[in-house]
Structures are given as C-alpha cells and as structure tokens.
C-alpha cells in the first residue's frame, strides 16, 4: 500500500516506514489512538477549567453539578469565565485541526495549512470589513444577519480565498507545492493589505475591537457569541466525515479516485465549503490562530497513517487538545496579564514548519 502511495508521489512524508506493517494492525492502532484522544481531551479540558489567575481547587468543580451550592464567585469564574473559554478553545482547535487535515488531503500536500495558504487571512479580512463598514456600506447585510453577520462574512471570505488558492495551485488535478505556497503568500499579502486599509479607515472605537484579530485570542469567549459560531462549526464536523473515503481515494491521484467511483468534483466542493465554514467560523470567534491546522494533522498522520476516516476525527480532537492546553498556558504564564494565544501557537508551529520544509527540501526542487 505505502509503496503504491510513494510511487504516486503523495503526501506521505509524515508516515513512519511501514513496509513490514500489516495494514490491519495500522487500522487498529488508528482506532485506538483516535479513541484515546477523547479521554485525553476531557482531561485537558478539566485542567483548563482549573487553570487561571483566580485560585481554584479540584473540589470547586463540584459547582458544575446541577443543584450544587458553593460560593457565587467561584461558580461565576468557572461557569461564565473559564468554561466558555475552554469550550471555545476546543471548538476552534477542532475546527482548525479537522479543516487542516481535510485541506491537506484535498491539496494532497502536507503544507496546506489554513493560515499559510491564506484562508484564515481571507476570513479575517471579511470579518474586519463587517466591523469597519458595518455601519455604512455593509449596513443592509449586518441588519439582515444580525449577530451571524460576522461568522457568515468570515465564512464567505474563507470560501473565496480557498477557491482562489485551489484554482491557482491546481493544474490538471495536480497541486504544485511551490505554487501553492507562493499563492498563499500572495493571498496573505492581499488580504493583509485589505485588512490594513480597513484598519486605516477605522475609528478609534473600531480599532480597539480589531486589536485581537492580528494575534488571535480566546479571551472574548461568552456563551451568547459562542452559540452562533458553534452551530456553524458543528455543521462542518457533521459533513466532513462524509468526505473521508473520497479523500483516501484522492491520495491515489484524481484519476484513480474517479475510477474508484468517487465524484471528484463534488468531493472537492464539499471539502472546500466545509473547510471554509470551519475556518471562517473559527476566525470569527477567535481571530487568526496559526499553525494548529498544520502541526496537528501532521503529527497524527505520523502516528496513525493517512486514512482520513481516522485522521479527520483525530485531527479535530488533537487540535482541540492543543489549543485548550496552549490557552491554559497563555492565561497563567504572565498572570494577571495574558499572552496572545496566536503568539504561542506560532512559537511552537514556526519551528515545526521549518523542520517540515527541511525534510521536504529534496522534493520541493
């Protein structure tokens, strides 16, 4: 199997050498790793709940139980401050992880990160446009969509950029790494310039709401705003698994996938729309948080192989785990102040990306 993949020139860099391994045993491992990630995420979320500037003890978690007494202050801190934040971290991390895995499958390239190829920047541009122009040019849209205007705009921004990158980087079913990354640079630059222009037009008040888009932040987590974005992300989670088998087929090349009976065109559309939906909603909720969509699927592909039936849910779980953990760290390391979370993920993800590039240097040519 892996020999076939190698010959097809596929995105299997992350794999351990598996020549002697029986495909069945790898599938068993993939299943176990994916299942093990569920309690691991639960544990990290509990740690996240217990971490923060306000001192809390594990016993305080009892206030989460219905009907439990306990002190009002602790209850507020846990239920209204930390829990929405942990849930937001998990949602955004899962959205970035899963869409990263899906996009890498679609582009058949492990460097297709929503941040690197410009999807997040496009989504952020659209969201910033809604904030700055919401009172003037875009007023009808904002009036019609209300609170959903921001996530919907971010989704559309992400969708347009994903389609654009795909058009630019794919030629006759092949995606050239160099073209993909260069297109990503160009799109990041254009979206960044557009955002910069809007920032220049923004008044002081709007400028303050914009601060967090640059670095990414989970600090604005609130149940009310969470609900809208969570619905959109959940939709992507429900639909993306339908693409798993198709993405597996795509690994063998577009033509092979077509011969295997997959509707390649529909598959591409499905993945692009759902990835844009997940990334767009994540950006609307938390700004641009880079590298999660790159690092997480890659590590998991090394651990469990490229089967998307496991890779997609495992990447969602892994992304959630990473972001919840990073945010817990960001909240306490300079307490009572906070580090921007995008800074932390870039700090970890940047070197990882360089390492990936080094490994791939031979192929990039």
């Amino acid at each position, binding site marked *: 199997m892996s020999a076939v993949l190698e010959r097809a020139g596929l995105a299997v860099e992350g794999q351990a050498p598996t020549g002697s391994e029986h495909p069945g045993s790898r599938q068993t491992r993939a299943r176990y790793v994916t299942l093990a990630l569920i309690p691991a995420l639960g544990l990290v979320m509990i740690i996240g709940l217990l971490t*923060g*500037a*306000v*001192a809390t003890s594990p016993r305080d978690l009892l206030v989460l139980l219905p009907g439990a*007494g306990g*002190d*009002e*202050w602790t209850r*507020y*801190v846990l239920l*209204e*401050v*930390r829990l929405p934040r942990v849930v937001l971290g998990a949602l955004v991390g899962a959205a970035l992880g899963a869409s990263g895995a899906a996009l890498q499958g679609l582009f058949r390239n492990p460097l297709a990160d929503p941040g690197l190829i410009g999807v997040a920047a496009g989504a952020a541009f659209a969201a910033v446009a809604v904030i700055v122009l919401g009172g003037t040019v875009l007023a009808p849209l904002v009036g019609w969509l209300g609170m959903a205007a921001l996530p919907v705009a971010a989704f559309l921004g992400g969708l347009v950029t994903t389609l654009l990158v795909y058009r630019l980087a794919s030629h006759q079913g092949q995606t050239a790494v160099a073209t993909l990354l260069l297109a990503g640079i160009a799109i990041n630059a254009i979206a960044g310039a557009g955002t910069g222009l809007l920032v220049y037009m923004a008044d*002081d008040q709007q400028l*303050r*709401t914009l*601060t*967090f888009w640059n670095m990414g*932040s989970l*600090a*604005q987590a*609130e149940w009310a705003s969470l609900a809208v974005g969570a619905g959109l992300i959940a939709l992507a989670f429900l639909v993306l698994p339908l693409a798993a088998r198709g993405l597996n087929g795509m690994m063998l090349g577009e033509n092979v996938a077509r011969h295997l009976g997959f509707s390649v065109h529909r598959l591409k559309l499905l993945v692009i729309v759902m990835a844009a939906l997940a990334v767009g909603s994540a950006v609307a909720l938390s700004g641009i948080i880079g590298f999660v969509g790159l690092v997480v699927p890659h590590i998991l592909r090394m651990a469990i192989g490229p089967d998307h039936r496991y890779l997609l849910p495992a990447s969602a779980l892994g992304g959630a785990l990473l972001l919840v953990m990073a945010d817990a760290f960001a*909240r306490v390391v*300079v*307490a*009572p*102040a*906070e580090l*921007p979370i995008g800074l932390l993920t870039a700090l970890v993800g940047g070197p990882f990306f360089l390492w990936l590039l080094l490994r791939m240097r031979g192929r990039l040519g």
Partner: protein
Amino acid sequence: MSRREILRSLLALLALPATGATAGPPDQRLVSIGGGVTETIFALGEGGRLVGVDTTSTYPETARALPTVGYQHTLPLEGIAALRPSALLHDGSAGPERTLRRLERMGIDEIVLPGEPGFEGFRARTLSLGDLFGRRDEAQKIIDSVATELEAVRRKTPSEAPRAVFLMSHGEGATVAAGRATKADALLQLAGGRNVFSEFEGYRPVSVEALMQKHPDAVLTTGAAATDAALRGVPTLQGDTLFWLGFGPRLGQAVSEVATFLQRAVAHDTGHRSPIA
C-alpha cells in the same frame, strides 16, 4: 467566605462611586488603567489602594511594583477578577468593552473619569479623583500648581508659534504623527507651539515627504519613533510618553520642558533655514 458575606462586600463596593465626596471604605481595592490616572492617584496619596495597573502606568517607581494587567485595550477578564478589585478606574481608554461589562457583572465597578485632552481634561480628571477619595483639597493643590507653571510658560511664549511635529512609535517600526484632538496636540499648544498636522484627527502614519513639506521648526518624538535622516537638520527632542502625554501632576513640568525646547529650536533656526526648508 459564605455567599452572604460575598454579596454584602460586593454591595458595599458597588456603593463606592455613589458615595462621592466622602472617603472610600478602607477595603477599597482599585485597578488603575492609564499612566496619567495612576500617577494622579499616587500624587493624591492614595496609591496604597491600587492592587493592579496597566502597562502604561510606569510612574512613580512604586507603581511599577504593582501587578500589571497588560495592555489597556485588551484587558484580561480573569486576570483582573483574580486581583479582587472593588473597581476599575480609567479615563475612557480601557477595553474591550465586553470585558468591562462582564467585570461589572462580577461586582467590579467601572469608574470612568473625564478623558478629554488638554488642561480642562486634566482639571476635570484630577477633581473627579479628588472627589472619589475625599481629597478635594489635595486635588485642587495639584491643579493650582500645574496652572501656575502653565501661566509662567504662557508669559514667556513668543508671539509667533513655532511649527512643531509630534511623532510617536506605534508598534513595530511604524511611526505616526499626532493630528487634531490628541493629547500630543494639546501639549504642543500649551507649550506655545503649533501642530503642523492639524488637517486630520488622531494619529496617522505620515510620509517623510509630507513631513518635509510642512517645514517644521521642531520635532518631538517618543519611544523608538525614529526621525528620518532628511529631518536631521531640524531640532529634535526625544521624551517619555507618560511624562509628556500623561496629563497628570507633572503636566506643568512637561509643558515647560517642551516650551523651552521649542523656543530654543526657533532661536537656533533664525540665522539659516534648515536644509529641508
């Protein structure tokens, strides 16, 4: 702490701003946002009530020892809550707005002080703080001493106002110029200068050419704001953002420093125009 105890203490703290002129309760714990506000609180002798400040609160030295809650526009909800303050004080510069609303829901009051630039803003802000702590006399003393210094500067001001630019470092390497309705503009005016960038409001990035075309007599810069080589012939004074723009008790000193510099810059300039003119 029992629930009732907490509610009672929260209620007591909520009543704080309403009590106005009377001295605050002894357990009053405050977080101050904005270097000028913090400085004034210390000058009023109430620095002991502060349990946290933002990154711009760097004077007096004792303020630096307090826990810092970060950048004023991205205040952390739980970080501030953990300090268990009764109220958060600022002059309109604190944010994000939603975080302030949620802090209020946690029983942490928001006290907004007058934030207008200029002497009037300084006066109103200092008086509000004096009222808040029941130290009206001390507040008035601070205002009087600043007013005296400003009057002394005004008497020495030449009839023709020097043309001045105020440059500020805005993040990494980006230099912006102060326009109308800014504290920098107010500082220049108080020092007898005229801001050459009066056509826009707030702070904007400006090109070297735009700067040259304005033929400034003097340039003021803060932090790492770099003046281009093309402006080398123009007298430049580098200063501390908080000292110049805090509009607190040291306002008189700041204005007199800037006024002296502006006058010297013009005197130096009379013989020959600077290379860019």
